[in-house]
């Protein structure tokens, strides 16, 4: 185990391009603070032409490993590439995008490098000792814990939309092509079923109308959809509707999408802490629930005790009238 020492760069990696640019945005702030360089790691097949864009978004250096083995996003080639590069160049910090694939890759790299990894960081900063402070939600959203790593590289994974990308500029940077020894994948893909993507990513919706267990039938979501349509928003779901009732595939909450819309309206949602963790940063929170004791009311700006089946259509009608 190496102790934290002379900075040799902040590195970022994600297989998701948007997330990679957001990592560069945050990474450049951290690298400036440490007076070190910011490097992106680009893994793929025939990807060198993408390096220029990464430089434009803040990378001082782009390490490129080109191989057909990266095609299907199997863990092993990614882990071996990143771990061997990190062993060779010894970065100070490594930020990896918190997709499901990114998180498993990060965990394995950190193990191979005998270091820690703080997943899903929403707060990253440099303290007076030059250490990376990594903040994340713990205890099902009950608390934010701040961590640092005694060992280098300091590894964090970062969820989408936690940080902003920079504007694209014409900049000069260095492209370093590396031949890394890659491990072959040990899993084989048999079948891929695409999940139909929502029209707008839920993270990007300005208004989110969310339904929970209080919505009795899947068809009843039409009343939430009508409200969403009235205000140009998106409908979202809680985890039980997806996993217990199997009505939908993805949910808002600690283990799903974390959103920060201008307006969140929770309909028939009790507000378990894991759900609240995913909506906490919304600007205005409205909750509609029959149960006056529902915990969601503790984290609500506008409390409506009542039947969503009556309130929601009436709210759509009132907004249609007033917004005309």
């Amino acid at each position, binding site marked *: 185990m190496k102790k934290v020492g002379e900075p040799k760069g902040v590195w970022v990696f994600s297989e998701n391009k948007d997330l990679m640019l957001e990592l560069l945005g945050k990474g450049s702030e951290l690298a400036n603070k440490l007076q070190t360089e910011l490097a992106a790691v680009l893994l793929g097949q025939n990807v060198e032409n993408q390096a220029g864009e990464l430089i434009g978004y803040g990378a001082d250096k782009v390490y490129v490993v080109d191989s057909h083995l990266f095609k299907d996003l199997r863990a092993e080639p990614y882990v071996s590439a990143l771990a061997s590069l990190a062993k060779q160049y010894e970065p100070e910090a490594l930020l990896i995008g918190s997709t499901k694939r990114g998180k498993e890759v990060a965990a394995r790299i950190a193990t191979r490098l005998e270091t820690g990894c703080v997943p899903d960081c929403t707060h990253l900063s440099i303290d007076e000792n030059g250490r990376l402070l990594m903040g994340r*939600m713990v205890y099902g959203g009950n608390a*934010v814990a701040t961590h640092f790593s005694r060992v280098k590289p300091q590894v964090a994974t970062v969820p989408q939309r936690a940080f902003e990308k920079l504007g694209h500029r014409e900049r000069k940077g260095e492209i370093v092509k590396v031949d890394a020894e890659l491990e072959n994948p040990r899993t084989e893909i048999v079948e891929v079923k695409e999940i139909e993507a929502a029209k707008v990513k839920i993270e990007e919706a300005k208004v989110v109308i969310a339904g929970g267990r209080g919505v009795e039938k899947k068809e009843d979501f039409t009343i939430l959809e009508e409200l969403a349509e009235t205000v140009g928003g998106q409908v979202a779901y809680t985890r039980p509707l997806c996993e217990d009732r199997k009505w939908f595939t993805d949910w808002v909450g600690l283990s799903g999408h974390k959103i920060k819309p201008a307006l969140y309206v929770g309909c028939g949602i009790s507000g378990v802490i894991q759900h609240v963790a995913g909506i906490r940063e919304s600007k*205005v929170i409205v909750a509609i629930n029959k149960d006056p004791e529902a915990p969601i009311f503790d*984290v609500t700006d506008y409390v409506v*005790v009542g039947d969503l089946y009556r309130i929601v259509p009436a709210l759509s009608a009132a907004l249609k009238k007033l917004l005309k």
Partner: protein
Amino acid sequence: MVKIIACIKQALDVTELKVDSATRQVITVNAPRKISDFDKNALEEAVRLKEKLGGEVIVVTVSPEDATMTLREALAMGADKAYMVSDPSFEKSDTLVTSHILSEAIKKLGEIDLILCGEASVDSYSAQVGPRLAERLGVPQITYVRKLNLEGNIVTAERSLEDCYETVRAKTPALVTVTAEINEPRIPSLMAIMKATKKEIVAWKAGDLGILQEKVGEKGSAIQVTEVLAPKVERRKIVIKGETVEEIAEELAKALIKEGVVGR
């Protein structure tokens, strides 16, 4: 005959945690402990595979505290034997350390077909220990699994990813982490609970696995925690009232328009 290991964590029941509002400290001392939710799914899946294919399910836990009651529940759910790797020196271990202890324990259990873990724990939700364990044991990993099948030495699993369901195949031994979608964990019958009291729980300490004290706990961990604070809740809790549903709706609509969060 298969031999399956289900790794379980004795987690804090996060729905029962209390926060001291003055200091924003989370009070964990007397909070109830339970089998972490997704680990229950992992155990249930292990037991179902055993019921189908014949064989043995072993549960393993690593904990700074005693976990006997938690393991009794796992045994009642259908595990055949439990290993409790528990040592006060494990307090404040990070996932680097926890995965090390767990891997050393599993290495002592001989040849196995599958290791099952939950996708993450309910209290820390880091999703680190499963993949780290796969790395340490040098086995293939399949994470976020919603359907699982084992035939001979081939495991086939459907993963639930952000943009797709991906079915993959790997050779055993392999490590699989499961989501809550995969099954509905059983509630043990009274008979099963009674039977479980006769099953064996083997207790190991760090020394039994040849793990040095300086490799565990805060000393052995890379990650240190500087503070844990409850987020500030600064919501207004304005109650919208009215004689009729229409009045309530109109008052709320006006408030939202005034906030500037709806409309153009």
